[in-house]
C-alpha cells in the first residue's frame, strides 16, 4: 500500500495517522524520503485500508514489480527509504485545563488520530518523562510571566485562571512562584533530551525554555510574577552554556510588552519592532547523507506562508553553532525551523502558533483542520511525530 504524499494525496494529515496506527498495531512501514512528497509504504493490511477509506486518504496499490521499480528510482535519486519500526509514545506538556484546540500540535495529533498523553509540571518533576519517546511543549511561557499578558489582559478571565493555576501549582510543588517552578521544569526537560528523548517545541515554548535554562540563577521575571523586578544586569548574567539552541540573546525589559528577547525575529507584540510576515523555504537536504533533517522537511510544498506566534521565528545571530536550519526566509535575518542534537537526544523548534491561522489572536475560534487537510505547515509538525519511529540506526547522524 503506497500512501503518496504529493499533490495527489487527498488528505495528507490523516495519512500520518494511518501510518502511525499501522505501526501501533505492529505493522511494517517505510518512509520514502523525497519520493512523491515523502510517501509512506505500508504492508497491506485490511485495517489500514479501512482507516484510509474512512479518512479519505489516497492509497495506491503497488505490485511487486512496481515496488522494485520504485526502489530503483529511489536508489538513483536524492531519495532514501527509512524503515519505521515502532509508534513512539507521545507526550504533550500542557496544563490540565488546556483544550486540544489551544495548540497546533494537539490539533494535528487529534485530527490525524495519533494517541498522546498530557503531562504537566507535577508529572515532569515526578520523573515521568523518560517513559515517553517524544515530547511536545505546548505554547508555555517557561519564564513564568504568564506569556507577558499579565498587564495588558489583567481583567480577562482566561488570564486570571492561568495565573491562579500556575501559582497554586508552584506552591503545591514547593516553589515560591511560577518563575522558579518553570526553571526547574525546564531543567528536567533538558535532562530528558540529554538522556535520549525527542523534543519538539513551537511558538513561545522554544524561546522561553531557553531563557529559563540560561537564567537559572538570574531573575528575569517581572515583578508581577515573582514579586521582584527583572535584575538590572539580567541580560549580561545569562548563562548560554546551559542552553540547547540559542545564545547571547538580549532580554526585553518592559513588562508591558509581550515579547521576551531578541531571539524572536518578528516581535509580533512589540510596538516598534514588529516585522511583517513573509514566506519560508524548506531546505533541500541530501536524503542519503542527512536522513534526519530530510525526514523533518518532507512536504508537498517547498515554500510555505509564514505565521505569527508569540515567538514567530529565530534570529540567525542567536543560533548556536551546529544548529541545523530546516527552513528559512531567504534574505531575512531570521529562520523558521531549526533542529539539533543535545546529549543522546534531539530537539526541533518551529516558530509560530498555528500554520493555518497566520494572525492568530487570543479568543479566535479554533482551526478546523478538516478544512486544511493538506496543510503543508501542519505536515512539518507531523513529520516530527513520525521521526522517532524511524529505526534507531537511521537516526544517528
Amino acid at each position, binding site marked *: 500500500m503506497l500512501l503518496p504524499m504529493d499533490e495527489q494525496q487527498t488528505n495528507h494529515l490523516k495519512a500520518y495517522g494511518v501510518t502511525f496506527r499501522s505501526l501501533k498495531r505492529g505493522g511494517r512501514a517505510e518512509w520514502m524520503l523525497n519520493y512523491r512528497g515523502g510517501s509512506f509504504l505500508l504492508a497491506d493490511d485490511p485495517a489500514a485500508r*479501512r482507516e484510509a*477509506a*474512512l*479518512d*479519505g486518504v489516497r492509497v495506491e496499490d503497488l505490485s511487486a514489480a512496481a515496488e522494485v521499480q520504485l526502489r530503483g528510482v529511489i536508489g538513483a535519486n536524492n531519495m532514501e527509504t527509512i524503515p519505521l519500526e515502532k509508534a513512539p509514545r507521545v507526550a504533550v506538556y500542557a496544563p490540565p485545563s488546556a483544550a*486540544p*484546540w489551544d495548540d497546533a500540535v494537539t490539533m494535528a495529533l*487529534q*485530527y490525524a*488520530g495519533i494517541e498522546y498523553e498530557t503531562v504537566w509540571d507535577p508529572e515532569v518533576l515526578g520523573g515521568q518523562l523518560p517513559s515517553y519517546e517524544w515530547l511536545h511543549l505546548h505554547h508555555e511561557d517557561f519564564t513564568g510571566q504568564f506569556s507577558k499578558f499579565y*498587564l*495588558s489582559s*489583567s481583567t480577562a478571565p482566561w488570564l486570571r485562571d492561568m495565573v491562579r493555576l500556575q501559582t497554586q501549582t508552584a506552591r503545591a510543588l514547593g516553589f515560591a512562584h511560577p518563575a522558579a517552578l518553570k526553571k526547574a521544569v525546564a531543567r528536567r526537560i533538558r535532562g530528558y533530551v540529554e538522556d535520549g528523548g525527542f523534543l519538539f517545541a513551537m511558538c513561545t515554548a522554544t524561546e522561553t525554555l531557553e531563557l529559563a535554562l540560561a537564567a537559572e540563577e538570574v531573575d528575569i521575571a517581572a515583578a508581577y510574577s515573582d514579586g521582584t523586578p527583572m535584575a538590572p544586569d539580567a*541580560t549580561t548574567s545569562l548563562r548560554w552554556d546551559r542552553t540547547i539552541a540559542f545564545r547571547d540573546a*538580549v*532580554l*526585553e*525589559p*518592559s513588562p*508591558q510588552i509581550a515579547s521576551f528577547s*531578541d531571539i524572536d525575529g518578528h516581535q509580533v507584540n512589540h510596538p*516598534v*519592532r514588529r516585522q511583517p510576515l513573509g514566506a519560508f523555504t524548506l531546505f533541500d537536504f541530501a536524503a542519503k547523507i542527512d536522513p534526519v533533517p530530510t525526514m523533518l522537511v518532507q512536504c508537498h510544498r517547498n515554500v510555505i506562508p509564514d505565521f505569527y506566534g508569540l515567538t514567530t521565528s529565530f534570529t540567525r545571530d542567536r543560533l548556536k553553532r551546529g544548529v541545523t536550519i530546516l527552513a528559512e526566509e531567504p534574505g531575512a*535575518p531570521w529562520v523558521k525551523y531549526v533542529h539539533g542534537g543535545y546529549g543522546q537526544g534531539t530537539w526541533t523548534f518551529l516558530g509560530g502558533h498555528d500554520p493555518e491561522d497566520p494572525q492568530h489572536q487570543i479568543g479566535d*475560534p*479554533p482551526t*478546523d*483542520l*478538516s478544512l486544511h487537510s493538506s496543510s503543508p505547515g501542519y505536515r512539518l509538525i507531523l513529520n516530527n511525530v513520525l521521526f522517532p519511529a524511524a529505526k534507531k540506526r537511521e537516526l544517528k547522524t
Partner: protein
Amino acid sequence: MRLGSVVAMALWLLAGPAVLPAQEPLSPHEIVARARSEAGLLERQGRFVEAAAAYVRGLDVEPANTTLLMGLERMLARVGRLGEALPYLARAAAADPTNEIIHGLHFSVAARIGGADSAAAVAARWMATVRGSVMPYREWSRWLAQRGDTDAALAVLARGRARFGDVQLAEHTAPVLTQAGAWVEAAEQWAVAVAVNRGILSPAGASLGRAPTSLRDAMLEVLIDAGNSPGTWLASDLLLQWGRPQEGWVLLDRSLPGPRPEGARLVRRFADRAASVGTRDATLARGYALERLAQLTGGVVAEQARLQAAQAFADAGNLVGAERLLSQLSLETPAQSAAAAEALTTFIRVLAESGQVEEADRQFRRWEDQIAPGDVEEIREHLAWGWVQAGDFERAEEMINGDSTVGALSVQGWIALYRGDLATAKARLAAAGPYARPREETTRSASILVLLERVRTDRLEELGAALVSLAAGDTAAAVVGLRRAADRLPDTGGRADVLAFGGELAAASGDQDAAERLLGDALAADSAGPSAPAAALLLATVYTDAERNDEAVVQLEHLILTYPESAVVPQARRLLDRVRGMIPKT
C-alpha cells in the same frame, strides 16, 4: 551626457591627480545629509549599531534634527540599547525647547526605559518648557492608560483640565473614563468633545456603544441635557446601536440643524447606519429618515431618497408608508423610471408574500399602466405565486395566462405538482430550466425535479397534497402526507426517495423521532438507491443531535465505505471527525 561635458570630463581625467582640487570640508548640511544616507543604507543591511553611530554623527552637528533622532531611537531599540538615546533626546530638548516632536519622543523613550518615574519627570519638564501646550497631558495620560493605570491617567487629565479647561482635553478624557468604567462621566466628556469637533461622532459612538445596559438611560440623559445638538446626535446614534432605532430617529429628527446640507448629511448617515443594522425596526427607521431626506433635498437626490424610503418601508412591512411614498413618486418621476418600477415591484411582492394578495392585485391594477411591460411580467409572476400560496390555483393561472416566460413555466409546473399531475409538472419545471425567478425558486424546482424523476407514476394526488401543506408552512401535515404518498409507491420506484424527503423535512422541523423512522424506512426500502447516501448522512446527523454518537459513527462509516463515490462523503467524513472529537465543534 552632452558632447561638451564628455570632453570636459576627458580633459579632467587626463590631467589626473595633478589638477585635483584640495578637498573642501563638508558643510554642516552635507554632514547631516551624508549621515542620514549612510544610516539608511546600514539600516537596510541590518547593521543597526553602525546605523546608530551614523545617526549620532549627524546629531552632533544638528542636535535637534527630528529625523535623525527618530532614526537613532529606532536603531537603538533594535539592538536593545534604547536607553542610550536618552542623552541625545535631552540635548535635543535643550537645543530646541519648543519642539513638541522632540518632547514627545523624549517622553516615549523615557517612559519605555525608566517606567512611571521617568515618564513623570520628562512630562513635568515638557509642561514647564511649553507652558501653553496640552500635549504633555495627552501623551502622559495616554501612556498611563495604555499600561492600565487609569486612575493615574485621570489624575493627569484632571491637572490639564484645571489648567486649560474641559474642552481641550475632553476628547482624551472620555476614552480613559470609558476604560475606567465611568460610562456616564465618559458620556459627559464626549458631549463636550463632539460639540467642538463633529468629525469624532463616529469614534464617540463606537466608544460609548459598549456601555452596560443598566447605565444607558443615564448616559442618554447626560448627552441630551448637554444642551448642544451634537450631543443629541450622539444619543441618537447610540439608540440605533442599542436596538432602539425608532427612538433614535425621533431624537435626531427633533434636533436637526437649520442649514440643509448639514441636516441632510446627518439624516443620510443615520439611514446608512440603520441599513447596516438590518433589523426590521432599523429598516423602518431608515424609511423615515429617507423620507425626511427627500424633504430636505430636491431634484434627483430627493427622488432617489423617496424610492429608497419606499423600498425600506416595503422591506419592513410598512405597506402604508411604502404606498405613501410611491404615490408621491408617481407625481414627480417619469413613469417609466426603472427605479420606480423596482420600488413598485418590491411593494407588490411584499404585499403578495405577506398574504395580502388581494391588496397586491388591487395595487397592481392601479399602477399597471405606468409600469414597463418587462416589469409587468415580473409583478404578474409575484402575484401568481401569491395566489398559489393562497391556494387559488385558478387565479394564479389566470395571472400568467399566455405567458411563456421561464418564470411562468415554473409557476405552471408547481401548480400541476400541487394538483398531483406529476407528468405535467416534470415537463413544465424541466422547460423552465435553471433560470426561473426568483433564485431560491430555482433551487426548489431543481430539488423537486430530482425527486419527480425517481417517482415512477404520472399522477399522485397524495404527493401534491403533501407539497401544498408544505407550501402553507404546515410541515407536520406535509410529513404525514409524504408517508401516505410513499405508501402508494414501490420500494425502488420512488418510495425510498419520498420517505427520505419526509425524513429531511421532519429533521428540519425538529421532529427527530419521525425523522429517524422515515429515514430508517427509506434506507430499508432501497439501501442502494440514489437517495440512500443522503438519507444515511441525515440519519447520522439525527443521531448526533441526540448525542447517540456510537450509532452515528456506525452509520457514517457504513456510508463512507459503501458509497465512496457519493457527493455526500466529504460531508460525512467531516461529521465523523466531529463525532470522534478530531475537530472542534463549531
